[in-house]
């Protein structure tokens, strides 16, 4: 009798240990791979804090011997942090607001109304995503040039082309945003719309008071995606804006070439090295990192609840 009991116990124990081992392996893999993810950022941080001697010193890889904030402050000067940061936030923010709004309208139409040609527009939505942006840029540019000449209104080199595209649902990865809204709206029960409609609510009222008010997390997720993508976008911006508005990511592309001239203007004391490059990169991503740190809880929840597949 007693023997049997212990046997059961050891069997249970064996199962328990097996599970523990499996779990440890899983955590091990995730931590190791997670480190590979973080490595560039950690390296950036380490290099940022290094002084010029530490960069050359082969015995210093991670922890600088003489940490200094000199790199950071000079990189900020080269990037013209004050103006570029403000411009970037306003520009990406405006584009993101436009994209989010139009994506919500489109997602609402696709989710709520069985109109004729709905399937066709779905196909077009996917097509708009698949066509590579470079294919569209030549005619788009020509179109804006022709438009600005006939309207006598400067378009190329201003923020208008991109704002127009964002507010008409053709910004960066707009399709994905529409699909996020589409899936999220599909999860809101239709009974609510019908109840509101019986009480005399118009379509706009249903859109605003029921669907939009119930999808705060989705809106946050979409806005954040849009903001980040617009922030990181440099190709369309460089073609249409032509550097007339100084933005942080585009300044980063020019960092290597602009470094020397700024350095000379200051007195020529600085030489371009890894530490400066990494400081500049860190500065240009830190607004996004900060934003992510503040909203990541809702962001991850939102992603997991709604998903962005749109099946």
């Amino acid at each position: 009798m007693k023997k049997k009991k212990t046997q059961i116990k050891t069997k249970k124990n064996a199962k328990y240990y097996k599970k523990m081992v499996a779990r440890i392996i899983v955590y091990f893999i995730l931590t190791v791979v997670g480190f590979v993810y973080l490595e560039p950022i950690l390296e950036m941080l380490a290099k940022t804090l290094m002084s010029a001697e530490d960069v050359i010193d082969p015995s210093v890889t991670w922890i600088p011997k003489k940490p200094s904030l000199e790199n950071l402050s000079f990189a900020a000067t080269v990037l013209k942090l004050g103006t570029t940061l403000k411009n970037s936030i306003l520009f990406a923010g405006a584009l993101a607001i436009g994209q989010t709004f139009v994506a919500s309208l489109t997602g609402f139409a696709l989710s709520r109304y069985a109109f004729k040609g709905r399937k066709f527009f779905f196909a077009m939505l996917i097509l708009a995503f698949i066509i590579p942006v470079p294919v569209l840029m030549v005619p788009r540019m020509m179109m804006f040039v022709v438009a600005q000449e006939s309207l006598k209104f400067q378009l190329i080199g201003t923020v208008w082309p991109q704002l127009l595209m964002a507010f008409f649902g053709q910004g960066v990865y707009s399709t994905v945003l529409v699909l996020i809204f589409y899936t999220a709206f599909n999860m809101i029960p239709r009974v609510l719309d019908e109840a509101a409609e019986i009480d005399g609510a118009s379509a706009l009222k249903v859109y605003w008071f029921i669907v939009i008010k119930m999808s705060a997390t989705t809106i946050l997720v979409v806005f954040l995606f849009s903001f980040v993508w617009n922030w990181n976008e440099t190709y369309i911006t460089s073609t249409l804006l032509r550097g007339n508005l100084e933005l942080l990511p585009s300044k980063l592309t020019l960092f290597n070439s602009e470094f020397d001239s700024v350095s000379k203007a200051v007195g020529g004391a600085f030489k371009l090295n890894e530490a400066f490059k990494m400081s500049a990169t860190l500065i240009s991503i830190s607004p996004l990192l900060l934003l992510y740190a503040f909203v990541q809880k809702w962001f991850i929840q939102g992603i997991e609840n709604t998903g962005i597949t749109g099946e």
Partner: protein
Amino acid sequence: MAGNNIKKRFGFKKTYQGRQTRRGYAFMLPWIIGFTVFTLLPFLYTIYLSFMTVESTVTGYVITPNGWNNYYTAFFKNTEFVPALISFVGMVIPYTFVIIVVAFILAYLLNKIDVGKGFLRTIYFLPVIIMSGPVMSQILDDADEAILAAQGIEKSTNIFILQMIAEYSEPLANFMEGIFDQLTMILWFTGIPIVLFISALQKINPSLFEAAKIDMANEWQILWKIVIPMVKPTALVATVFIIVQLGTYDTTAVYNLIKTATGNTNGGLGYAATFAWIYCILILLIIGGAFVLFKDRDKKPGRR
């Protein structure tokens, strides 16, 4: 009478269906206008332009027909274009494959754990936020220099297992070395696919797993018979997303070629359109290939 007919044809009637159509279009309107003006027309115009020479003059654009000359130049005269295309295909296919597999494994593992879930997910979603051209090129620039420095000392691989593989097949070893060299970059592309896979994994009905466990299935069988078939549609979405993302990734050679051709104002725009159009066909072909690969073979009716 005619007006009535048009109304009937487009469904603007005072019926339920009519109202659905009307409202649907009303909400879709901004997107439809934008799509037509900024995407569809430029897309068609690119095809037209690819047969033209475009010159930018003081008075405006001068467009003259050029027949197949642009294509001839792209394929036979320009020495950079075809190698760039080939290297692009050579990059996209292995990358996509590795990214999908790695993303799925990571998502599966992330979905298994409960302690420290939030912290690990924060790390793994990070590439979604930071992934961008300038940042990547600054980081990769650094990595390239390191690789070049390493190459100065010893050229061939120094990893023992890869040397063993190279004994049997040189290309395979080179391929694997390439993967390991650029592992960081590949991992940074997994951001969105991981997000997609996690949300797909969480949508699987837990009772399926219970039923499988009652039937004595082990974890491995559950993974292959339930999880993978269930996330297959998501894998397709993720594949398309990766291909599109790689296609617009700044450092690919084709992309830069198109960019410089676009910047070249005297006569360059026609070539740029041709390059872009060929590039587009190529990407569409690759995506089509992905669709064929992920198509459910069992679902075909009348075949067993």
